[in-house]
């Protein structure tokens, strides 16, 4: 049976007053405490606040994480997660429930960042973003290298120094970004996308120098990891030092331990390339020369062998000569026998040829002509002789012969008319008197008729 109130209290509290009192006491006594327990009955209404119950084997306490705190949460709060929380106690007066208002919470045994990292890594891995099959080979000799990092950082200077040393002709496009702080992840992701779509570069380096886990955190952000995975050109990650691993490293096509190593990975050593080229060109020349020399030697050797023994051709030629000789011999013999027979026949024929008669006639004619000439000459000589004797006989009968006996012939001068009568001339004319041995030119002085 309930105790009856015998003594009336001096003061009766309202529920609200009591609750306020309790709240006051609680808030005073438990203004900052750490509690560990398991999260359950998780509720995340659209307000952004997070409500859950923190419990252990036998007890539980309501917990609330207001929106601002919830937004700072690095990992996903999940049912059953063992938590270590820091907060203060208060009372939710409308329900008369006390609760712990959380200022900080982390997974038990693991840093919050680390857990978030594990969770994101697992999720992205399930999507296949880290598959080795996605990794692309780095270009052998990039035209230009993109660098996503801070302009102020040592990483950029290291990268530029290595690029210049190895491949002084290689172009670089820097996309400057903050590499730590709240804005960093979004800007890094945007810079990666910008370089990727610019078509300016054949490969890019994304990274920064060393720092704390928090400093490097932006390279674990989903936006950055997705931008790297989506890049059109291979990405080399270079975040922090060798021991630091970020999700960017898992998504990248190549993970370089440091920015300098990243630069070495993308840039071949130009001098080596040139050396290799020269070497190959030299080997080419050597090889072809050796080849030609070998061929020439083989040719020479073959020629020596050929000259050293009788060629089938030579043998054949000799045999041919031989045969031809023999063939010629027999043919010649036959031919000359026939020739002789033919000659004999021809002679026989020629002997009875009309040409023979003509030939003898031809020798006869000159003989006849000669005989005719001789006959003629003899006859003519006789005629001459007869003529000469007749002429001397005639000589005695010539009027001129009379002149020898003292007669002369008178002729007019110059006509030569024989003067037969005295009257044929006149005194003063000239006449010539022809004597046996010459002429007298005479002037007529007087005509004396007889």
């Amino acid at each position, binding site marked *: 049976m309930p105790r009856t109130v015998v003594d009336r209290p001096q003061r009766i509290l309202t529920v609200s007053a009591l609750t306020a009192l309790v709240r006051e006491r609680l808030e005073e006594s438990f203004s900052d405490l750490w509690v560990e327990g398991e999260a359950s009955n998780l509720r995340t209404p659209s307000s952004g606040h997070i409500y859950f119950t923190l419990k252990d084997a036998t007890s539980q306490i309501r917990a609330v994480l207001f929106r601002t705190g919830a937004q700072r949460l690095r990992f996903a709060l999940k049912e059953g997660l063992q938590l270590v929380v820091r907060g203060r106690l208060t009372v939710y007066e409308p329900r008369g429930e006390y609760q712990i208002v959380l200022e900080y919470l982390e997974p038990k045994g693991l840093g919050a960042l680390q857990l978030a990292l594990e969770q994101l890594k697992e999720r992205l891995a399930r999507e296949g973003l880290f598959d080795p099959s996605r990794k692309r080979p780095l270009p052998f*000799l990039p035209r230009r290298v993109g660098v996503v990092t801070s302009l102020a950082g040592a990483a950029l200077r290291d990268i530029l120094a290595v690029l210049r040393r190895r491949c002084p002709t290689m*172009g*670089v496009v820097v996309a400057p970004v903050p590499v730590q702080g709240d804005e960093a992840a979004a800007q890094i992701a945007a810079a990666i996308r910008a370089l990727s779509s610019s078509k300016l570069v054949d490969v890019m380096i994304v990274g920064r120098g060393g720092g704390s886990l928090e400093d490097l955190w932006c390279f674990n952000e989903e936006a950055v990891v997705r931008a790297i995975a989506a890049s059109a050109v291979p990405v080399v990650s270079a975040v922090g030092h060798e021991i630091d691993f970020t999700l960017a490293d898992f998504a990248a096509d190549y993970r370089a331990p440091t920015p300098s190593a990243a630069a070495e990975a993308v840039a071949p050593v130009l001098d080596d390339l040139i050396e290799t080229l020269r070497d190959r060109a030299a080997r*080419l020349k050597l090889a072809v020369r050796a080849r030609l020399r070998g061929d020439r030697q083989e040719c020479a050797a073959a020629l020596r062998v050929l000259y050293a023994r009788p060629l089938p051709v030579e043998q054949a030629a000799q045999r041919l000569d031989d045969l031809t000789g023999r063939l010629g011999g027999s043919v010649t013999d036959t031919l000359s026998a026939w020739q002789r027979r033919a000659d004999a026949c021809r002679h026989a024929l020629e002997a009875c040829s009309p040409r023979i008669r003509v030939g003898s006639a031809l020798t006869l004619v000159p003989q006849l002509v000669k005989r005719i000439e001789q006959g003629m000459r003899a006859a003519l000589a006789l005629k001459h002789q007869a003529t000469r004797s007749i002429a001397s006989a005639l000589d005695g009968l010539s009027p001129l012969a009379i002149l020898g006996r003292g007669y002369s012939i008178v002729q007019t001068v110059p006509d030569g008319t024989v003067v037969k009568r005295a009257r044929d001339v006149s005194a003063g004319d000239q006449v010539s008197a022809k004597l046996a041995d010459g002429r007298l030119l005479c002037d007529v002085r007087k005509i004396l008729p007889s």
Partner: protein
Amino acid sequence: MAPVKFEQAMARLETIVSELEKGDLSLDDSLKIFEEGIKLSKTCLKMLDDAERKVEILIQDKDGRKRLRALSLEEDEDEPAHST
């Protein structure tokens, strides 16, 4: 893209050199690939010679357009500034 061509050219050159060094090819083919090899080595050297180093910075204007301008750091002061 030039780098791919370069890499391919280098690989082809290597193949040609080892083929020639093996010496199983006919004389005709040897001379043919020799000529190709010499041409390739010249092309590759030219590619290397033709490259021009620029260090530029990708800037996004307020209107969202991107452009390049020469980057000049103290450590890079001997680098002539190219304007783009």
